[in-house]
């Protein structure tokens, strides 16, 4: 079975949990930016967390299905329609062969996910179905969807067994707020910031600029200051430059000291800009929910606090799945 893409939307790609193990040659993790939303979509339609979904950015696709299909849309709040009639988000939907799914205007956030029973069935590349557009690998022919694409869907898993509940309870749906607090672990090259620079980073409001995509998000704010120094050999002339090094996913770099950039799942794997801290793993999904114009405060936490937050997020996911009665 397949989805027939009538209109691809702005940037619709196949994503899953991502590929690891090849960052050492510059192949990024990729995968759904909001893993939590994608995972609960998969749970609603009886998939495991591993199945591939369609990630929609701001404007979703118009698609039809050539066979009956069980789907769910999760993530950023958006109006969605089946054959032009509004249907709910975060809820399992039964499509009949020939039905058309379409979307209205996104109300907050940036991305939402279409999960389908069985999962999107593109070939795995290096262990993942996720699209890495710059390298043209994974996903549907290594690129975002285009009109006319026939996107294959796999057969249902577990004989089509579905969880008891058909909607994610309100308490397990994430908030898409205009203001975010993002927890970071300071480190990497934070010692190269002046005290004033560090103070600006942690005690200012930063706004997400329109320069935000799967590679990273750029923020505007008061800027920071770097300590002057004689630059080491090979590092480049600006005080924000270092000898090109590996970039942690979620790390914050501030080229020239002006606009912080947080790297996300399709990030470049390395480069010559000093990083001053890294968003904790539990808050990476939050970044995917921050629309341009929303504001962010960065709060420094310890490694131990980051590990506690990581456990709490895992627990939240377990509880959400349990509330659905999802068994896989």
């Amino acid at each position, binding site marked *: 079975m397949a989805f027939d893409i009538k209109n691809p939307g702005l940037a619709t790609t196949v994503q899953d949990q991502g590929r690891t193990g090849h*960052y*050492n040659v510059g*192949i990024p993790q990729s995968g759904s930016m909001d893993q939590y939303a994608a995972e609960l979509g998969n749970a609603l339609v009886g998939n495991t967390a591993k199945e591939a979904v369609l990630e929609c950015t701001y404007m979703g696709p118009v698609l039809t299905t050539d066979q009956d299909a069980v789907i769910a849309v999760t993530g950023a709040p958006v109006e969605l329609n089946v054959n032009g009639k509004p249907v709910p988000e975060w809820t399992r939907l039964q499509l009949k062969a020939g039905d058309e799914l379409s979307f209205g205007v996104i109300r907050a956030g940036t991305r939402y996910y279409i999960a389908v029973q069985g999962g999107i069935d593109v070939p795995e590349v290096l262990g993942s179905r996720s699209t890495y557009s710059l390298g043209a690998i994974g996903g549907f022919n290594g690129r975002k969807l285009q009109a006319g694409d026939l996107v294959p869907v796999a057969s249902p898993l577990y004989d089509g067994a579905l969880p008891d509940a058909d909607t994610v309870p309100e308490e397990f749906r994430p908030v898409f707020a205009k203001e975010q607090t993002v927890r970071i672990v300071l480190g990497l090259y934070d010692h190269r910031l002046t005290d004033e620079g560090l103070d600006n980073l942690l005690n200012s409001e930063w706004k997400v600029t329109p320069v935000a995509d799967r590679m990273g998000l750029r923020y505007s704010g008061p800027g920071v200051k770097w300590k002057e120094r004689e630059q080491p050999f090979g590092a480049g002339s600006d005080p924000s430059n270092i000898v*090109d*090094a*590996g970039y*942690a996913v979620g790390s914050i770099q501030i080229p020239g000291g002006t606009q912080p950039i947080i790297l996300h799942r399709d990030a470049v*794997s390395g480069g010559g800009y000093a990083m001053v801290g890294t968003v904790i*793993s539990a808050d990476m999904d939050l970044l995917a929910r921050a629309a341009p114009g929303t504001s962010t405060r960065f709060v420094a936490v310890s*490694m131990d606090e980051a590990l506690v937050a990581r456990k709490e997020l895992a627990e939240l996911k377990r509880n959400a799945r349990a509330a659905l009665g999802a068994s896989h």
Partner: protein
Amino acid sequence: MSSPEPAVSEARYTWGGDEFLFVEVSESMSLAANFRVMSIAEKLSAMELPGIVDICPANASLLVRFDPDGLPPSTLEDAVRTIEGDLAHHQQQALETRIIEVPVWYEDPFTAEVAERFREGFHQEPGGTDIDYAAKVNNLKDASEFIKRHHEQPWLVSMVGFVAGLPFLFQLVEREKQLEVPKYLSPRTDTPKLTVGHGGCFGCIYSVRGAGGYQMFGVAAAPIFDPAQFLADFKEFMVFFRPGDIVKFKPVTEAEYNAIQAEIAAGTFRYRQAPVTFDLSKALADPEGYNQELMEALNGI
């Protein structure tokens, strides 16, 4: 085998959130620092610690991604510190690697066309070419002398990354002879695929088309990233370069470049390459003499 210890001081350990350990072997770039990074990466990889996700050696630092649910951060740090301590007392000197000849069309029309679109506000000398500027800032007579310096001595792949399969290259010459060129004042939004570039002390080959800030000198004639794995050199993996590879650039004419394109289209192109043992102490003691020895491995291939 015993030889003088390379001048590498103690590394700096720091965390990239709860999933990344960053080990800065040196703030500045040197062959000895890169060799230390590669040695740590190799030994850490051989340990096969459960919970390690990615081991990414870079020019003078190492990034390790781990799963803290299976591998506590302190356990990982202890393991890397132990490896580093062992290497400080007994740095391994030899690296089993390969030397590869990479044909380059210097001063090609593709990079020239893109360079023309990014002059005013992007380049230090908008009225001239990237390669003339590079020659000037290195106090060389002209572009042809710069090209000669660029391809006469081989380069070490000191890091692979930025984008899929892009090699960072460090020329195997004394520091005084390193070619140093500032990056563009502001990054371009476009760079032709396979551009041979240079920023700071590093050369590179852009594996895919896209943004870039390095000066552009030419294009490599053959692919270095082949997701379709069409050519024989990519049969095992879609990325050609590995850290530790040694690259010898070979200038080619337009006619030779076109002949290589025909071989690529026919699927018959192979890189000229030969296995070599790279010895750090020899490379540090007499770079150019040792380079001659390394390059001889390509004779008759």
